[in-house]
């Protein structure tokens, strides 16, 4: 039965209270970012929605796997085997190089480069705000993902995690307007910061002087400054340089190497500052249980990284003074809370 007079405070009073709470929440969230617990709780409610939305896509992949013919599978298997053999051969060499590199670094008493831990995460097929570049991953704090954790794909750095929930996490791509990543040109060692532009196809490099040695086609790698992203992962490739003499700095654009809008699997990386707490279960190179498709992606990333590391260290050892005068602004990778 409906009572004649509704109980509880009036709508206006509640409205006023909620306005105040909203303003307080926004301020706290923006200034201090201390509301992870609230976000976490609410994300539990949201998880079923995400799960249901992602289900058809998962079913599609599942169907594709189950319904593919034996011949297709055999072909694919053979291809992957070939690929694996190739990467393995390359890895062997790199393994030795890495050890040698390590030894040399120790001789020079430089900080040893340790390899990072990886874990494959799948992007949950949900769309979020069309004007922000966020993706939702199926790994959360249950898998020791942490806030600020870098994510990469087979081609380069993709972004970093900004919110961690128990089962999922939200990551910001390097192309988001509020993202910035410290980079370095691998040819010259020139340091800079690549800012997201809100477009997936280019990043902005700011504060590069006119006399800088920089060319179209130069590869940008993460410099590791700011201590959020690991060093020497490929980030972007320079596509456009506009030298307007009227401006203080030149206008440089770079295209991200990671497939920001097409990747389905990404790698979570545990950097040296954030060791993965559990004993290593995921040994990227030689674990037989993992899905093969993801494996070569993983390997090529590891390979790339190692390759870079070796090149980089060689450069440092042999011709250190070549480094450009320091012009780049060094800053934190991003104000991740925004």
């Amino acid at each position: 039965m409906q009572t004649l007079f509704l109980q509880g405070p009036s709508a206006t009073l509640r409205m006023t209270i909620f306005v105040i709470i909203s303003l307080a929440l926004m301020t706290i969230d923006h200034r201090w970012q201390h509301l992870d617990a609230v976000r976490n709780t609410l994300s539990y409610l949201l998880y079923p929605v995400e799960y249901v939305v992602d289900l058809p896509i998962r079913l599609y992949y599942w169907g594709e796997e189950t319904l593919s013919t034996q011949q297709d599978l055999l072909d694919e298997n053979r291809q992957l085997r070939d690929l694996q053999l190739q990467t393995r051969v390359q890895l062997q060499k790199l393994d030795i190089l890495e050890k040698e590199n390590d030894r040399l670094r120790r001789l020079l008493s430089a900080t040893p480069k340790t390899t990072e831990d990886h874990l494959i995460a799948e992007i949950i097929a949900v769309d979020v705000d069309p004007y922000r570049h966020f993706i939702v991953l199926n790994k959360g704090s249950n898998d020791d993902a942490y806030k600020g954790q870098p994510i990469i794909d087979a081609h380069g750095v993709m972004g970093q995690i900004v919110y961690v929930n128990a089962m999922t996490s939200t990551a910001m791509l390097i192309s988001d307007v509020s993202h910035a990543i410290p980079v370095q040109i691998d040819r010259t060692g020139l340091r800079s910061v690549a800012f997201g532009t809100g477009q997936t196809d280019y990043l902005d490099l700011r504060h590069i002087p006119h006399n800088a040695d920089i060319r179209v086609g130069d590869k940008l790698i993460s410099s590791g400054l700011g201590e959020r992203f690991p060093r020497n992962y490929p980030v972007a490739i320079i596509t456009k340089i506009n030298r307007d003499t009227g401006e203080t700095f030149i206008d440089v654009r770079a295209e991200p190497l990671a497939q920001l809008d097409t990747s389905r699997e990404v790698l979570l990386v545990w950097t040296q500052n954030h060791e993965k707490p559990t004993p290593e279960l995921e040994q990227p190179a030689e674990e037989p249980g993992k899905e093969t498709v993801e494996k070569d992606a993983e390997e090529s990333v590891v390979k790339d990284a190692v390759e870079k590391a070796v090149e980089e260290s060689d450069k440092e050892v042999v011709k250190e003074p070549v480094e450009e005068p320091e012009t780049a602004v060094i800053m934190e990778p991003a104000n991740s809370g925004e």
Partner: protein
Amino acid sequence: MESNFKVVVLSLFVAFMLTIMPLPDWVVEFRPDWVTLVLIYWAMALPARVGVTMAWLAGLMLDVSHGAILGQHALGLMLVIYIVHLQHQRLRVASLIQQAIVIFFLLLLKQLIVLWVSGIVGHAPVTWLYFMPTITGAMLWPWIYIILRDIRRKFGDRVNY
């Protein structure tokens, strides 16, 4: 639990699904604000059940799903529902077209509040397409109204409160 409440929750679930469902790139910017539309309907039809509190909570969930700062969508959605709550009797007797026009301005208000907050925080989108959901939402309103009304009549309680 009364069946009205179940219907409301279920329709909100679907609205959230539609909100995060992946769409091809060219339609993403036209995606109407499903959660707001559905809540406006319920605030009109069942003002005693669906009010400011529910709107605020739904808004918080929108914030989480959008990765926005907490309170952004909650504030906008809650204010819109507050207006609907005050005017629900007038809205109910209006024709569908008139309703759609009002809904347009309500959706615009919500978009503006969200935009202002984004602007203050420092990443406001810089395209007029940002207001597209307002237009598509208002255009879809008659259908949303009819569908939800039929659902309510079929599965809801007899007493409409």
